[in-house]
């Protein structure tokens, strides 16, 4: 197990290194002179050169990369070129907000999808199965901004029961925060429900058809026990992998949802940084998301290996 984990961890580090190189290089390819962008059109060329020199962006690219990554691993993310303030105080609340929204969405979508998928599998070919499958597919096919706007219109403007913007007022309590996050979380649930439920349904059907399930039934074990002990444990393995891969999207990829609900998440921060050529924010923000994403994947791998000893042993060999 320890060897498996070490191997996964090493892979994550290599992936992070590659992400850092890619994002740094892509940022270098964006057009425009940093000094000129920051100081404006009326600044003299000399002050632009001095600014670039002070920032170190007139050095060779590999030197800039080495300097940036070595500071990053020491926890120094640098300063925003756009706002001229340290990055971490900007990124941290955005990251926390994204994690909060991801958590609320996770709590809504995972049980609901798994329940829907298992129920559909147990009622295979019957009305319940058709309703769940078709509803899931339909919801997935609707773009998230469309479902978000429908939710806003119905719950925010027509019935006025939920706030239409997701940022709770400063100093709000836990439940107020949850209330403000409900609409965006519901929009995400609508997007992800069909996909996760479909995976859970397929996994459950496969487990129901497996020899060990038939044997368990033949041994006279009660249905509920068979499903709980034998079916679910095996059927949820692919579902966990799917959920883990969605964590990156849930944390860093919600630009559209964040825009529609005017939520200060890390996706919107990075999008704005890319639009406004805030290279330092862009580079560090992407790397922070990558770290969170890979951590989620690592946790999923551990869970997967706990549930499936074959993976654990194969990974260790």
């Amino acid at each position, binding site marked *: 197990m320890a060897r498996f984990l070490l191997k996964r961890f090493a892979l994550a580090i290599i992936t992070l290194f590659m992400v850092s190189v890619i994002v740094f290089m892509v940022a270098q390819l964006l057009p425009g002179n940093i000094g000129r962008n920051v100081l404006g059109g009326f600044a003299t060329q000399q002050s632009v050169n001095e600014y670039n020199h002070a920032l170190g962006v007139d050095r060779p690219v590999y030197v800039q990369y080495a300097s940036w990554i070595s500071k990053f691993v020491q926890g120094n993310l640098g300063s925003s070129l756009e706002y001229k303030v340290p990055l971490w105080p900007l990124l941290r609340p955005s990251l926390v907000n994204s994690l909060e929204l991801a958590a609320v969405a996770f709590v809504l979508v995972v049980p609901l999808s798994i329940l829907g998928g298992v129920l559909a599998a147990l009622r295979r070919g019957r009305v319940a199965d058709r309703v769940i499958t078709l509803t899931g597919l339909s919801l997935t096919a609707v773009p998230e901004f469309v479902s978000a706007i429908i939710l806003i219109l119905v719950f925010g403007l027509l019935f006025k029961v939920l706030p239409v913007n997701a940022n709770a007022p400063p100093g709000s309590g836990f439940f107020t925060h949850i209330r403000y996050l409900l609409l965006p979380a519901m929009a995400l649930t609508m997007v992800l429900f069909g996909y996760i439920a479909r995976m859970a349904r397929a996994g459950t059907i496969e487990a129901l058809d497996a020899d060990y399930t038939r044997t368990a039934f033949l041994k006279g074990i009660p249905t509920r026990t068979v499903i709980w002990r034998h079916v679910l444990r095996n059927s949820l393995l692919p579902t966990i992998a799917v959920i883990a891969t969605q964590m990156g999207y849930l944390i860093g990829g919600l630009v559209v949802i964040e825009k529609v609900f005017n939520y200060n998440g890390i996706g919107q*921060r990075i999008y704005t940084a890319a639009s406004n050529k805030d290279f330092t924010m862009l580079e560090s923000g992407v790397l922070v998301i990558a770290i969170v994403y890979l951590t989620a994947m690592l946790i999923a791998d551990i869970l997967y290996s706990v549930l499936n000893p074959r993976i654990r042993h194969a990974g260790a060999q």
Partner: protein
Amino acid sequence: MDRETRRQLERYRQDEAGPFESTFIDDVIAGEFDRRELLRRASILGLSVPMVGILLRAAGEPAAAFGATARAAASSSRLRLAIIPPPTGAIEPLTFEDQGGLETGGICGEFLTRATPSKTLLPELAVSWKPNANATVWTFKLRPNVKFHTGQAMTSADVVATWKALASPGSQALSAIGSYLAPAGVVAVDDLTVAFHLNSSVSNFPYLTSSDTYQAIILPANYKMGTFTSTPQTTGAFMITAYNPGVGATYQRFPGWWGGTAPLAGVDVTYYSAAAAADAALLGGQVDLIGQIQLATDRSLFNNSNVQIFKARGATHREMCMRVDVNNPLHDYRVRQAIALTLDRPAIIKQLFNNLADIGNDSPFAPVYGLARSVPQRKKNIPKAKQLMAAAGHAKGFAITLTTETTGEIPELAQIVKQSVKAIGINMTLAIESATAYFAGTSTGPPKGWGNTPWLNADLNITDWGSRPVPNVFLVAALSTLSKSGAGVWNAAHYSNPKFNSDVKSFLAAASFKDQNKYAIAMQQLLLHDTPVVFPYFYYYLAAGSKSVKGYVADPLGQIYLSKTSLA
């Protein structure tokens, strides 16, 4: 005019008035101005309230109802304000160049004077001002007992330090004042008097000290760049107490404000990058006021019984600039005229603004200025446009690219232009970029003096321009020949006409309305002939609020002034 009024006017001429004031009195007696224009011009010259009363009598107008506007009592209410879009950089008044930044700074900042939507100048941190004989020196008396949010008293040293910085390299205010004022020209006369020694005569200089020059927020002499949002240190009714870039800002009522007590206890600003989200927040009751809206992007707010729309008629506009110095058909003025003649302007403002706009006549003299109104309006005329194209040797048309930005209704305007010029055989391709990309790059230096930014170098482009109470910036920065003094820095058409430059100079120095109008007409006619820029319309500045917002007045430039605003 009765004998007593005449006697008072003559005494004023003898005892106090300089040439500018005397010319103004002559204009009033000659009946050159309506009431609004009389009040506006009196405010430029800084005339006292009794003197304005005498002038109104001389003009046969009823007396003005001067005095403080009624203000609601202080309450514990906080205004929730939406600003679209967020500031694009650090909140640093000296370098303000975007709407989000000027709105954020303007809530807590104050200026020497304040330009009102009616274009009358109100005293703010200055209580009076006066020109010398040829308007090359303007002397401002400062308001006594003004305190910064830090507690220190405001003196002429603070005003001089602020204005020296504004007139120095690196200041974005140079586009407005760089042609007239050098840092050495700002001089403290005494603790509460400041004199501005200008390079040339500027008869409407007090406007440049107003909220119109949005970078000119008065700051303490010991102000350190980069501390605007971390330390409350302006003089306004509200002080900024928290700022989260891209997210929002918080303001608290300033108990030591010279103007008394503001009705609101504070202001909570939320930045929005999408108009739809701000609109939903207003309709859903999560914000009380949106600082700026447009018909094109905020249609859901119009004709809604729960929303009040605040309008300010001004000179906000779009400029379609045609490079006069390129080796393509745009080089020929007849082609540029032909393009301008394809536009059906009344239909455009109906479609884009539901008529909440004035028609432009291809000059910066917006109808609201009341200048050059005798020059006939340019109208759609396809046969004439075809004749001009044929005369220029382009009867079969040509292909060209129009470069512009995704701001407000501009993409729709670009589509309209593209469709319109088809009638004269022009095959137009649209290159619509994000505002960031459109304004990216250098705007000074090689190859032609305007750097490499698309907005100043594309052959044909459309750019957004904010309103100004006087057309100085449009005439000097956008249409004059490029010079080291700061003229022509935003001249995207690269237009250069010595006669026009000379008329601009004469216009700025002219004391009487008659002379100003004479030069405005000359410039209008030159611009209609040369057509370096198409000014299709001047649209109204719009804001939206819930019905509970009271006492708010929209500003044509977009300043959000909340000292008299309250919530019901």
